[in-house]
């Protein structure tokens, strides 16, 4: 194969696209850990639910409007599911050891998997993107799907929005404070439970949004929760659990690794990803941008 400019552009675009989805999902995961100190294994399930809800909305409404409606409705729906999880399950285990949290959220994976199967059936779902996003754009002598650019754009928008939220708003200030020292914050009279809920709902919203964005590409089925969970996990760990810039960088690294890895060594591309995770955990366990856990 030839390493010309066209190929490199394609590889970079493909890496950015993958990174975009990873970032959107991993950002939620890492944010939740940073503030609530909980690893939510069910984060992938939320992503899956977002995709299925989007599929239903698109199929029910028909026509082009369906997708845009789903883009709003699905993450909101998933946010609600997140609220239920936070209230019903997570609240009881904030003080527990990480193992307990991992097991409880793992139980949620099992539960959600079957619930999705019960509600939507086991069959694979296929929906289409709106016509406006269906074409391709020429870059040099290569064509790139418009939809991929759409996804990348969304990731950038979200990255900016999250940055603004965390570094420029009152809630963001409280979030950052909670990441530093939640106990102290509570002693100062801040309503910690409300912050925790808000953050978890935001995280769920992001996961759901990720699900909607992948829906039209033909990837809606049971099992997508585990697939994305592992990848988001690796991204969050490499970037640093709890670190927002870490999620951005981690997603970029993993996305590019996959893209170029499949080109160079397709059989073992995924192995490099886990190797990266292991190396980071050995050398710098708290990740590239993380802080050692107190």
């Amino acid at each position: 194969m030839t390493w010309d400019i066209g190929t490199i552009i394609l590889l970079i675009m493909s890496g950015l696209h993958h990174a975009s989805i990873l970032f959107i999902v991993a950002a939620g995961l890492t944010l939740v850990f940073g503030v609530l100190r909980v690893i939510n294994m069910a984060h992938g399930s939320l992503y899956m639910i977002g995709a299925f809800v989007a599929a239903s909305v698109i199929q029910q409404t028909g026509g082009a409007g369906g997708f845009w409606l789903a883009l709003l409705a699905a993450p909101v729906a998933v946010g609600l599911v997140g609220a239920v999880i936070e209230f019903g399950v997570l609240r009881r285990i904030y003080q527990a050891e990480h193992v307990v949290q991992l097991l409880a959220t793992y139980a949620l994976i099992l539960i959600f998997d079957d619930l999705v199967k019960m509600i939507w059936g086991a069959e694979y779902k296929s929906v289409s993107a709106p016509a406006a996003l269906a074409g391709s754009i020429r870059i040099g002598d290569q064509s790139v799907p418009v939809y991929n650019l759409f996804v990348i754009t969304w990731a950038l928008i979200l990255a900016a929005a999250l940055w603004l939220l965390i570094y420029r708003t009152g809630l963001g200030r409280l979030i950052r404070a909670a990441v530093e020292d939640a106990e102290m914050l509570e002693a100062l009279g801040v309503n910690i439970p409300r912050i925790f809920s808000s953050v978890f709902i935001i995280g769920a919203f992001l996961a759901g949004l990720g699900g909607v964005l992948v829906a039209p590409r033909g990837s809606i089925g049971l099992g997508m929760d585990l697939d994305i969970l592992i990848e988001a996990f690796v991204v969050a760990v490499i970037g640093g659990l709890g670190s927002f810039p870490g999620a951005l960088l981690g997603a970029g690294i993993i996305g590019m690794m996959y893209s170029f890895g499949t080109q160079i060594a397709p059989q073992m591309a995924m192995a490099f990803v886990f190797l990266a995770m292991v190396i980071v955990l050995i050398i710098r366990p708290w990740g590239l941008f993380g802080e050692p856990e107190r």
Partner: protein
Amino acid sequence: MAGGSSTIWRSGWFWAGLAVVGLALYPQFASRYYIVLSTEVVILALLATSYNLIFGYGGMVSFGHAAFFGLGAYAMALLTKNYGSPMLVGLLAAPVVAAAFAFVIGWFCMRTIRLYFALLSLGFAQLVWVIVRQWREFTGGSDGIQGVPRPEILASHANNYYFALAVTILCMLVMWFIVNSPFGWSLRAIRENTQRSQFLGINDRFYKLIAFTIAGAFAGVAGGLYSQFQKWADPELLFWTTSANPVLMSILGGMFNYVGPSIGAVAFVALREIIKVRTDYWPLVLGLVLLTLVLALPGGIVGFVAEKARPLLSARKGETRAP
């Protein structure tokens, strides 16, 4: 409570002996289906007990134990199918291979603690999984290895059961002696208070590494038995969701008790069988059961890490038990 613990000892062995007799007579009156099922339970009990060496007794939370189970399974499968080795060679190789990996992985993991220990063990396990799954030329890739040969004497379901039972009981005895040896007590001391045991001159990292390696070895034996029993080895055996099972079994049956994980294995499979007859939604039920169990634990009191000591296990002769 004078003489109380010697009564406990006697009755413990008595019940164990009774169980062994029961298990041995079992195939006489059980149908083919249940003999096969019990073979699986026996192997899982071995796996769960091996895991509890590091979980309950060592206070280490590993999420990568399936890697050693799977490696043992593949060692058996590859040697007997692709290289024509006799089954016993496979069964001896399985723990060796698993222990080798456990030692290396453990060495790296011992340098981290708590959450990062769990994550690193998970990361290593996934790395091994990917390599096994992708290295098609050697391991058969995502298809795994089919048609693992079984020696003629073990062809019948009952004989296979007896074999698995015999190996498992042997391993359980060995692990029992390890757990109740000076090594085992030091391990428990480390679990309860790492700093204090360091002051006592115990090299905690070394002890934990040895425990991790031993646990990996026995998981490898379980894996070897498994691939021989199922006649296949599959990358799924190394996937992290398989690692969750011994954790579940240890918790279900009780992790501070030597036979707890075994009871957990029986309970797990029994539950699965009962539920699957009634509904396809077995994962849902399992998830609800697990969730209930986890939430019912008063937060933090049932500790999984060394700091939350369990008086029962540190009780010596004559000491009273804490409730």
